[in-house]
């Protein structure tokens, strides 16, 4: 083990023998940084720039999908005569193309009902994606309700929540009629009063202050 004395790096010198070192090359009176310091800072800054040049594109590549909105898709689901006011008809259509069955989704479609105070001669397409955590709900004819198998969410005929953990009514799809054919388009969400808002993921509240706590995402389409 080294003794304490061994750790002293400078040998002892009498005060009269101590000389001040000559200034480094390039020294001038009043300089604020030595040349060595300038090069150290400059090389570190250069290294930082090189690091950012690698990291920023990679991060941008990974987060870009957040800001990307896909092409608007409309899927034909059958002639207008297929749909009635008093009950739903199940239609399966492709929501995400290119991934086979996994990209398909199911909608419950009917004509708008005057008794429920809806605008006449419209079509209502309700998504079967539960507003709690995204499980598939089923319309139970006998009860006239949508029921979710996962955690017991219950929605009424219009898709409004009447029981269980869901935080808002069921999502809907935009509907239009082209040459007698009903077409479904982009998904949108609704508030508890069935006012359309941009599509939210399941589990996210809509309406009022919730519009700020769960902000609309750039990847979704504007509501009708």
């Amino acid at each position, binding site marked *: 083990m080294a003794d304490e004395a061994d750790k002293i790096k400078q040998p002892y010198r009498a005060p009269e023998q101590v000389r001040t070192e000559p200034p480094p090359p390039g020294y001038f009176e009043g300089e604020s940084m030595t040349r060595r310091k300038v090069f150290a800072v400059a090389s570190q800054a250069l290294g930082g720039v090189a690091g950012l040049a690698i990291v920023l594109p990679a991060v941008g590549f990974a987060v870009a999908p957040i800001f990307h909105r896909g092409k608007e898709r409309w899927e034909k689901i059958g002639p207008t005569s297929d749909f009635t006011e008093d009950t739903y008809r199940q239609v399966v259509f492709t929501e995400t193309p290119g*991934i086979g069955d*996994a990209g398909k989704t199911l909608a419950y479609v009917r004509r708008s009902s005057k008794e429920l105070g809806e605008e006449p001669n419209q079509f209502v397409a309700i998504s079967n994606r539960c507003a709690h955590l*995204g499980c598939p709900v089923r319309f139970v004819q006998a009860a006239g309700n949508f029921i979710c198998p996962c955690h017991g969410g219950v929605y009424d005929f219009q898709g409004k929540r009447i029981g269980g953990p869901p935080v808002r009514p069921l999502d809907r799809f935009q509907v239009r009629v082209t040459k007698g054919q009903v077409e479904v388009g982009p998904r949108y969400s609704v508030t508890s009063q069935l006012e359309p808002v941009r599509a939210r993921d399941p589990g*996210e509240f809509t309406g009022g202050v919730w519009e700020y706590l769960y902000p609309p*995402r750039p990847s*979704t389409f504007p509501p009708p």
Partner: protein
Amino acid sequence: MPKPTDLFVPAPLRKTPKPGAAGVPKSPAPQDLKTSPPERPTDLGRTGEKALEAPVESLAWIDQRMAASGFLTGMLFRKVPKGTNWFYTLGSATLFAFIVQAVTGVFLAMFYTPSTTQAYASISHINNDVFLGQFVHGMHKWGASVMVILVFLHMGRTFFFGAYKYPRELNWVIGVVLLILTMTMAFTGYLLPFDQRSYWASIVGININGTGPIVGPYLSDFLRAGPELGATTLSRFYAIHMLLVPGAIIALIGAHLYLVVKLGTTAPPWTKTGKPRIAEPSSNLDAGAPGNGYHPNGAGSTIAGVQIDGHGGGGAPA
């Protein structure tokens, strides 16, 4: 009887008489002349001896350049507190579970296809056609649950034994990050078989992420790589599962183990401690003072209470 030459040759230059000659006593013969000479080793014997020493020699060759033996002996023969028991093996068990996951995962990746249309078929192929495929897949699948359980047991041991306290708080924090990464592995791995269960479980999991206020919706979009679960989601999960998170886990396990060796383990809370049984924590910290490299002196003497000097001192400026 004096010789005639003695008359004119001075005494210092005279020739000494032979032993046994007139008047001079005979000394005993040297010992080695009485016995047969020692057997010389044959070439074969010498080669054999060299061969026996070859492993040691090559290790010495490596150690002369790496200077790792001081650290390794300090680590492997460090002293542990009295009362150390089977609960202290939970961390090693977790490490072993991770190694099982890493090894089986590498071999599963040789057969797996991260494509929405082929993922399920490739898993079926692994389970039904590949030799021992179902076994290796099963090790990976059940090993994942084992690892999560062991992580929590290890965490519980650390908590209830008070092993998270000074000076080991940083190791607790690293452990929590490792816990989160382990959960990330479990979450991203669940989607990969791409059957009904993994599909819906991932939908639910991503939507739970989305319920976080303000950042939640964007986090969901990030995980799915879009507004709906699609083809990119699977490859994204696959990349996170087999490249991003394992690398981070390996790096953090290294830091975790380094701190375990550096700081030592704690005695169980029921052990009565009159005096500290290992070096004081404060002296540990002093060992890191500038000018005194941790390796090997600091590492050896203060962590483990084992004094290791000199050899391997490449890292220790004297």
